[in-house]
Structures are given as structure tokens and as C-alpha cells.
């Protein structure tokens, strides 16, 4: 089922604050074969919060996660994420196109800290694969 075009421009409620712990940073770095030993978080770490916002959006729109393939992701940072941050992401749907029966969904999430200051803005393009198109 195609995604409802009226969602373009809509912002979804902010995610619950996500506490950035040393344990979470170590686990994230280790999962990609690295090691976090203090200092700035791995650059892609804000995806944890942005992904939660995306999941909430997909659930609200009744889109099945397994039909989503990631098309594009961009981060613009105001500062690195550090241990002790409390991050919240607010997702806005910025565009929607239909190509070959797939929905191409553009989103932007603003990731803010406990003071409300912007930490990073991240844009994602999500490809929602059409029903029945599987191999």
C-alpha cells in the first residue's frame, strides 16, 4: 500500500530522551569492530536516536520495517555526541515520490540535547518497497 502523500511536511512527536552511556558507546563502537575509549561518540552514533524517530513514524503510518531499504543518510553536526548527553530526535517528512511502485520518502530529524540545543541534523531517504515485488 502506498504511503499517504499528505504526510509531507508533517513533524512527528519528539522521541523520549535517550541517555548516552559509556556502555552504549562501547557497544556501538564494538559492533562495527572498533573501540570507544572515551571522547567523542562514533560519528554515526546519532542514528540510534534518529532510528527510533523513524520507527515511530513508520509505525504511525503502518509501514512494515522489512519493506524499508535505506537510500541515503546525511549528518550535519553542531558538535560531537559525548557520554552523558540526553538526545531527542524530532522527525519531519520532507518529500515523497513514487518510482516504479516504490515510495521514496525523504525525512529530516533534528537531534537535540537536554538543553534543547541542536546537536546534529540528519537527513534520510527511505525506500519503501512495493508489495508483491519480491523475488
Amino acid at each position, binding site marked *: 500500500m502506498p504511503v499517504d502523500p499528505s504526510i509531507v511536511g508533517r513533524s512527528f512527536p519528539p522521541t523520549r530522551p535517550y541517555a548516552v552511556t559509556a556502555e552504549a558507546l562501547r557497544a556501538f563502537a564494538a559492533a*562495527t569492530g572498533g573501540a570507544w575509549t572515551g571522547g567523542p561518540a562514533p560519528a554515526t552514533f546519532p542514528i540510534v536516536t534518529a532510528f527510533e524517530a523513524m520507527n515511530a513514524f513508520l509505525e504511525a503510518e503502518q509501514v512494515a*520495517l522489512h519493506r524499508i*531499504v*535505506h537510500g*541515503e*543518510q546525511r549528518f*550535519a553536526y553542531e558538535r560531537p555526541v559525548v557520554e552523558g548527553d540526553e538526545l531527542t530526535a524530532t522527525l519531519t517528512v520532507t518529500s515523497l515520490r513514487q518510482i516504479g511502485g516504490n515510495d521514496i520518502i525523504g525525512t529530516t530529524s533534528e537531534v537535540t540535547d537536554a538543553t534543547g540545543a541542536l546537536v546534529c541534523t540528519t537527513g534520510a531517504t527511505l525506500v519503501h518497497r512495493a508489495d508483491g515485488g519480491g*523475488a
Partner: protein
Amino acid sequence: MSLEPRTFTITRADLVAYAAASGDHNPIHQDEAVAASVGLPGVIAHGMYTLALAARAVADWFPDHEVVSLGCKFTSPVVVPAEGGAEVVVAGEEKGGEDGLTTVALTVTHEGQKVLGMPKAVLRRA
């Protein structure tokens, strides 16, 4: 200036660990049957996994810099076999930048094929 390429191996166990650490539990990164049902050639790595490897290479090359921006398109899937792993090579070219910024144009390949579209990082001295 060319930067020393970095080679990484992604295994199924890595994808399980990454799903837990990132919260991305999309089954196309774990389950062959689900991946096939949406037309994928097999279990694929999270695009963000591959981008995280690119970010690791950048952090290795420029330990005293912080990242101003980072991004890419995910143009080709990295299929991760049940046994062994998938090799990803991250190469980079350092470009001069404006205002003290350094731009790194990346090339990220798997089995000789580019898997990220125009991956790029912009850095500034921390």
C-alpha cells in the same frame, strides 16, 4: 592526497551486535527468507554499518579532527554470507577545504564494486 585504504570484514555476528547497539532490528539484516521476500540477493549489511566503517577509517586518518558533516547514498547492498564475512574497503582522498575545513572524498567498495554513492566527510581540527 590519497589516504591509506582500510579493509574491514563484516560477519553475521557483527550484524546481530549492530542491531542490538543501534536499535535497527530490520530482519533483512538477519533473515535470508525475509530478505528474499523483498527481492534482496541475501542478508545485507545495514547501510549504516557500512557508513560507520567509513567513519572509522576517517577517525583513524584524522584522530585530531571532529566531523562537521558525513553522508552518502546507499547504492548497492553488501551481502553478508552465513559463513565467513563480507570484505569492505574504504579509500579516501583528502581535498583542501575552505575556512580550515578538510574534505575527504571516500570510495567504499565490496568485491571491487562501489557500494556507497559519493560518500564524503568534512572535518575540522578539534
